Each structure stands twice: as C-alpha cells, then as structure tokens.
C-alpha cells in the first residue's frame, strides 16, 4: 500500500501530466509555424497551372472553412480535445477528407512490425554478444569482434543503408527496392514470405546500428561488472563461466538495458524516416515528415500523440518494473 501511494500513483499522475503537456505543445507548435496548410494546398494545386487570382482567394476561404481553421486558437484547441476524446483525429489537410486514422492504420503495422522486431533482435544480440566480449575481453575473438563493432558503430546510418542497397539491390539484386510486401494482404505463404523478403534489408540496416550501440553499452557495463566482488568470488569458487556471464554479469547490468528497451519501443511510433526513404519501406516516419513540411496539423498530432503516449508509457513501465529488478527501490 505504501509502495502504491508513494511510488506508483505519483508516477501515473506524472504520466498523465506529461501526455497533456506534450499534446498541448504539439497542438501549438505547428500553428506558430509560418507554413499554412491552406496556402500549401493552394500552392500544390497551382504548381503546374495558373489560376485566376480571384478564384484563388475564393478557394482559400472555402478551404479555411473546410479545415476548421477559421476559429480562434482557443476554439480550435477546445474542438481538438473534444474530437480527440472521441478517438477522432480529424481529416488530413493535404489529403482531405481522408481521416488521419486511416493513414495511421495504413502505416502503423509496418512501423511497429519492423521496429519491434529489429529493436528486440538488436537488443538481445547486443546485450548477449557485448556482455560476452566484456567478460572475455582478453580473448582474441573478443578483441576482433570489438574492433569490428567500433568500426561499424560510427558509420552514419545513411552510409550503411546505401552500402546494403547497392550490394543487395544492384550488384547482387536479391531484394526488392520498394514496398513492404508483394500484392494485397493475405494469409498465404507467398504474401508472408514477401514480407520477409521486402523487410530484410531495412531490418538488417537497423539491426546493424542498434546492435553496435547496444554491444558497446553492454560491453562497458560488463567490464565494470567483472571487477565486482561477487564476480571475482564466483571465479575463485570455479563457478562455470557461462553461469557467471548469464547470472552474474548480464543480470546485474540489466537495469539500463531495460530502460533502453522501454524507451526505444516507446519511441518507435515516430517511425524510421531514413529507413523509409532509403528502402522505400512503408511506415509513419515519412508521413510525419511530409506532414511537418506541409503543416498538416492533424497528421502531425496523430503521429506525435502516439509517440508521446508511447514514450511516456515506456517510462512509466520502466518505473513500475524497477522495484522488480532492483530490490533497493522496493526497500526505499
């Protein structure tokens, strides 16, 4: 009961406040941007043709009315919360009248599918291999592996992606260059295998970077851990090394890793813009980028809302899990 009052409830309250403030800030910032969605739309409509200036003025009035941008900021803000609480994110301005929910429904499965899978793989691989290398740091294979990762880690993602693309799409054209799958969704081997084939290169590109980061983190943590009394005592007691690695080293370095995992999974809703751009992979990242460029307030809000909720919830889960992983938190 004490834990609930002094630890859990304050964190849930904090979660609510973070989401409210985040959503409010996200509502305001695009509206202070000099880009106006109505002008942007008119600009697109007149990019290849001239339109009578008086017609443009009339179109502007129609669109402001349609987009619901003709009220004061406060009126728009109130209307926004009314809609949001009903689960309605409104229409996309740039793709009027398609609802924002449709865009999110189309992009979210790809973003979540790709980023959950790659985050988990790189997290598991990074911790496992990094901890092993940290523990066996004087072995030849560990030194080779560490140097290899140190070379890979600073490489900008763009370069890694471009190398993969050129090698596996041009020189050895094994993998497709655009899309998430072949054909329409169906529970067939052809469709499912196409998801693996279309997603392989984007996934590999993310796993490489994510693995390298977590490898270095795990190795550093493991290096600190092997100097601890209990590891040294275990070694003196001839406890098998694999048990030392799994139960002593990795287990005792798990707190920062859990933190990293929760925040990474929470942030995935922002999408993976560069992955989508480089590999033509579907998802929310490029949708968010385009929405920001075009001041499509509702799309920005829809995607950012998920990100805010995701990160805040990730943090909350970490906070709630801490007492399980770390008895000291329980004792406090």
């Amino acid at each position, binding site marked *: 009961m004490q834990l609930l009052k002094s630890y859990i409830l304050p964190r849930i309250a904090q979660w609510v406040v973070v989401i409210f403030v985040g959503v409010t800030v996200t509502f305001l910032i695009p509206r202070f941007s000099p*880009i106006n969605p109505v002008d942007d739309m008119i600009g697109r409509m007149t990019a290849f043709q001239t339109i009578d200036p008086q017609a443009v003025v009339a179109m502007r009035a129609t669109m402001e009315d349609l987009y619901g941008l003709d009220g004061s900021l406060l009126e728009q803000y109130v209307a926004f919360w009314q809609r949001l609480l009903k689960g309605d994110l409104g229409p996309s301005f740039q793709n009027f009248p398609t609802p924002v929910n449709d865009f999110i429904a189309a992009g979210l499965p790809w973003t979540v599918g790709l980023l959950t899978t790659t985050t988990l793989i790189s997290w598991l691989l990074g911790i*496992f291999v990094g901890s092993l290398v940290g523990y066996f740091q004087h072995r030849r294979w560990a030194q080779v592996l560490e140097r290899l990762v140190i070379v890979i880690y600073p490489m900008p993602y763009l370069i890694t992606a471009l190398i993969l*693309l050129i090698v596996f799409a041009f020189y050895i054209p094994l993998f497709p*260059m655009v899309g998430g799958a072949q054909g329409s969704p169906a529970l067939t081997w052809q469709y499912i295998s196409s998801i693996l084939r279309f997603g392989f290169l984007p996934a590999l590109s993310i796993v490489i970077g994510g693995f390298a980061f977590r490898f270095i983190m795990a190795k550093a943590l493991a290096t600190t851990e092997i100097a601890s009394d209990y590891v040294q005592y275990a070694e003196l007691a001839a406890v098998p090394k694999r048990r030392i690695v799994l139960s002593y080293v990795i287990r005792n370095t798990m707190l920062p890793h859990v933190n990293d995992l929760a925040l990474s999974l929470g942030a995935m809703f922002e999408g993976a813009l560069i992955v989508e751009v480089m590999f*033509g992979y579907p998802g929310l990242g490029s949708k968010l980028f385009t929405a920001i460029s075009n001041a499509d307030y509702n799309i920005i809000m829809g995607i950012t809302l998920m990100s805010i909720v995701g990160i805040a919830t990730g943090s909350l889960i970490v906070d709630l899990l801490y007492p399980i992983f770390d008895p000291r938190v329980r004792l406090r």
Partner: protein
Amino acid sequence: MMLFKNIYPYSRSVTMLRKLVLLFLLALLAVPTLVGFAQEPDGLPVDVPREDLWVFDQIFRWGTVGNYNVWRIGGSTPFHHALMLETFWNRDQETGEFIHALADGDPVYNDDFSEMSVNLRQGVMWSDGEEFDADDVVYTIETIKAVPELGQGGWHPQLVDFDVQVEKTGDFSVHFTLNRSNPRFHTLFESRWNGVYMMPSHVVSAAAEAVGGTENLGSWEWAAEDVVVLGNYLPVEADPNGYWELFRRRDDPENSLAGIITGGSGPPYALSIFYGNENIRKAIAMSRNELDVYFDVDIESFEFTLDNASKARSWYTDFPWAYPNEVSSRQLAMNMEGDPMLANKDVRWALALAIDIVELQTEYIGGVAKVTPFPVPPTAKLYNLYHGPMTEWLTNLQIDLGDGEMYNPYDPTVPDQIAAWAEEQGFAVPGEPHEVFGSGWWKYDTDAAEKLLIKAGLSRGGDGQWLTPDGEPWVLDLQSDPSENDAYRMGQAAFDMWTDFGVEVNFSTLDRNTWDQNHFVGSYEVSTPWTSFALASGDMWPQIRGRHSRYYAPVGEDYRPLGGDGVRRLRDDRLDELIDAMESVNPVSQEAENIEINTQLLQHWVENMFDITCIAFKKFVTWDETYWTGFPTAENPNYQPLYWFQGGKYAIQNLHPTS
C-alpha cells in the same frame, strides 16, 4: 563435489540454451536470405507478367490512396489525368499543337466573348460502354459550379464568378453563356496540366444520391472498382502506403479518346511506382528492369543509367540527351524591394553582363539546357513566336552605360559558342545550334558592367570590392534550393561570377520550405525560381496576370492572400497596361494581336532587366526499351514525353512491346 553436482545440470541446460539461441539467430539471418534466393529476383510489388506491364516513375508517394474523386479539393491528378481523364482540348508542349480531344473543333465565341459553343466528338465511350455526350458536359459543369468542395483546379470559383450557364443544344453540342466577356473561357477546358475533367453523369449522379445529395460530393470517395473512365486505364489496386498503383487497360482501348486519336492501344497494365527521391534508386531500378521510364534524375544518375541499362535512352540518343522543351525557364530573380541597389535598372543590367552564360550553360549545367534571355523557353513553337522574331530587336537593343555611351548587350552567337564547346568535348550537335542550345544571350562584359555600376553610384574599394554610394561594402544575398538541381547550379555560377566581379555575395542553401516561405514574405534579394510567361500555345495573359500591381504586397507581408503572384514586389505601370491589354484579346481568333502585345511585354521586361533569365527547363526523362518501345524521341517528336501531364497519354498510348 556438492557444487559440481549443482552446476552440471545447469551447465547442460545452458549449453542447450546457447545452441538454441544460435540456431534462432542463424534462422533469423538465413530464412529471409533463402526466401530472397528462392523467389525470382523480381522486386516489383505486383504479380503481373512483366511483358504485360509498363512500369513508370510515380515521382512522389501518394498521400490519398484509392479515392478517384479527382474533382474534390486535393484530388490527385498527376498522371491519373493522362491515364483516366479527358477534357475538350489538349495543348502539346512539344509541338504546341492545339489538339481536339472531346471537342470536335475549336471553341466558337460570339462577338463579345460572352458565349461559347462547342461541338463534341462522337463515338467516345466511357469504359462501361455508355457514350460520352452533351448530358455529361452539362452535368459536370452544373455539379462543379454547385459544390465549393469540388475545388480541383479552381474551376468552381471561376464558373461561379462568370455565372456560367450551360445548355445542351444537341446530343453532341453545348452552349455556354457567361455574365461578361471572357476571351479565354475555353482555357478552362484546355489542358496542359489540368482542364475541367468530364464526369460520367450516369455514375456520379447515382453516387450523389448515395451520399445524400450533390452538395456532399466533396466528401464522396470513388473506389477503384467503381471507376468509369474516358481514358484508357482503370485502377486495379494501390499500396495503402502510397508507393505504387496498378492500372489495367480497359477492354475497348479503341473507344478511349487516346485510342481514337492515336490508333494505339497501350500496354495491358501500367504500374506507377515511387522509388524515392534519391535519384540513384531510380537508376538502379531501371538497371534491374523494374522501371521502364523515369521522369528526371541528376546527370550523375543519368550517366549511371546509361552505363547499366543498355537499352535506356532519353530524348536524344547522345549529347545533350535530355528533353529540353518542358515549358518553363529558370531565373536569377530579384526582389525589387530587397537590396536597395536592385531597384536600379543599371545595377540589374550590370549583374546580367557579369554572367558568362556560355560558361554557366557548359561548366555548370553540362551543356544540356537551352539558353533564353527572357522568361519564355525556346521550344520549337515558342522560338518561332518570340525568340526568332525578336532577334533583330534584341540585337539592336541599346543600353546607356553613362556619359551618353550606348551599348548593344545582346550576343546572338551564344548557341554557336556552346556548339563549339560541345564539339571540343567530342560531342556531335544534333541539329542547328539554336535548335539544340536555344537563343542568344547577354554579352559577358565586365567592363560594361563596371560602367553601369559606376553610373549607379557604386565604386570599387581598395580591395577591388564594390561599395554602395554610402561607401559601405555592397553585400548581395543569393538564395537557392538544392532540390532543383539546375536552379541551384545556376545560383552557384552566379555566385562565382559575381564574386569574381567584386560583389560580395552571401550564397544561402535553403530547404524548399524555408526558401518558399522567404519568397512568400519577400525575405530575399536574389533567388533562383522558375517560370514561363508563355503557355505552350504562346498565350501569356494566364501566366502573367498575377503580376499586375493590384496583387502587390510589400516586403514582410505574404502576397498569397491576394491571390496573385507578387513574389517580386514589383509595381510597374507599363506592365499593368500591357497585362490589361492582353486580357481582352482572344488567343486563338486574335493570335497575331495577342502575340504583338506579348512581345511588347517581353521587350519591356528585357529593357528593365526585371530578372536575369538564363536557361529553359530540361528533363532527363529516360526510358528503357527492354519491354516497351514507341516513346516520342528527338527523331520522332510526335508528342511530348512528359507522361505525368494530361497530354502525356498520347505517348503512353503509342507504346508497343519491343519484342
């Protein structure tokens, strides 16, 4: 011993676990690789035999997918209009030809241009077998006029503004009545890009009932399976994430308008696909035979294509390769209320004479775009209307360098100089120099430029840099957006040449949004935009009307709410007078008079050097002939190859299998 007993089973399970983890990781890597190997290396997202499929560059990722109500605000028309939609007339950008599409002849006006009659082509069928007729026209006009949300192309407010009434005068003839004179009313139905697209009245009227009335058609979603077209293609399926869209040829291509006009039938399937904005991705896709045509790339990716796709080519088979006749041109445009020096005509002329156009066109642009001294690209038709006839005037044009010294700035030999450069590089020039490289331009004469700046009150400092009349260093801000490759390189050339001339230039590389925004509020001094004062037909009023000073907004205010094109912050009485004079002239029946006024406007523009226009548009629109051939080329320039324009349908319809 006890310890050993405890550890042994644990050790065995860990070994098992390790093996399982390794197997899992191997499987993660191996399965997709095997899948990749096991399947054909076909990366296309649709399962259609490649020999039946024409794959073209989608240019961008669709936002809205699967809604073919193109009449609504934001309805997506690029290449949809070439595949599916029709209006009365098309204007081909390559030939300038006024093509009778759904209209069977030119528009017929009454004397004061307040009425227009149109005879309709007979025998054009909707894809569901209904014949297109006057009922469709009447329904389309009345519906668009009635629903503000059907705002595509600004047709609704224009129909309302002229209170357009349309009546059926026969099964295949209609008559329009306007509330006042409009000699260009027909241009609403003349597509270079868009024109009022006809609705299938029998389909849309039923849809209107389904959505609760005509007034709700703005939110009507027209699904692929319900679409009925006059064009040659019907949508089949689309990627919900907007990367691709598949179309199939209608069952009776001979009854589509493009089929009737060209006699061709086009490929059975057409797939638009977006490979991203990275040029190299398109080039790789073409090398994999997964893209039959792309709309444009940079020179490096084009060269990659030529090296890796043996059957790929652009407009010319060899230098200068690119298609040179898209109707637009690129300027070093000056904000008349930006740097105070730029308000002085002599300063603007000095900056023009400090540009070496031959070096700009060759060293910076690679010799692949046409030169033009005013904002009209020298396409075959427009050259004959403007550049050619104005050559004598340009050659005789004189400007005052000060102290009564008159100077002829025009150099008609510029195309010959570029041709000589090309031959030095080992390239053959495929035609007369002016046909390939455009018209003459201004002399590169820094002595004359210096005299003009001195005349304007500027002076050289001790370091050779130019000082303003106040004795302060003259600093010029030049902005450019690198996503427009030629414009950016033109900006780099100007930066280098003006710097060499002693002007301190700040060259800012801006992303498109920031660059656009600076234009909207006049926060720039010199920039690198693009425009054409003339349409493909040669008519100018629709393009220039927005520059009338009634649409002027001062620096700091956004010009867009006024509806015009006040980006230059220019107010000029003579310009207004000429724009007003153009308005009342019919560009078809009074073409000579129209061209005369347009020419006067161009002369006025040049005399004042309101901007420094350098080059015309070029596009590395490139196609691979592994599967399909018949695209228009420099050797066979029957239509424009710009398939994303409405008139691009003729090029598509003429395609036939290579084999």
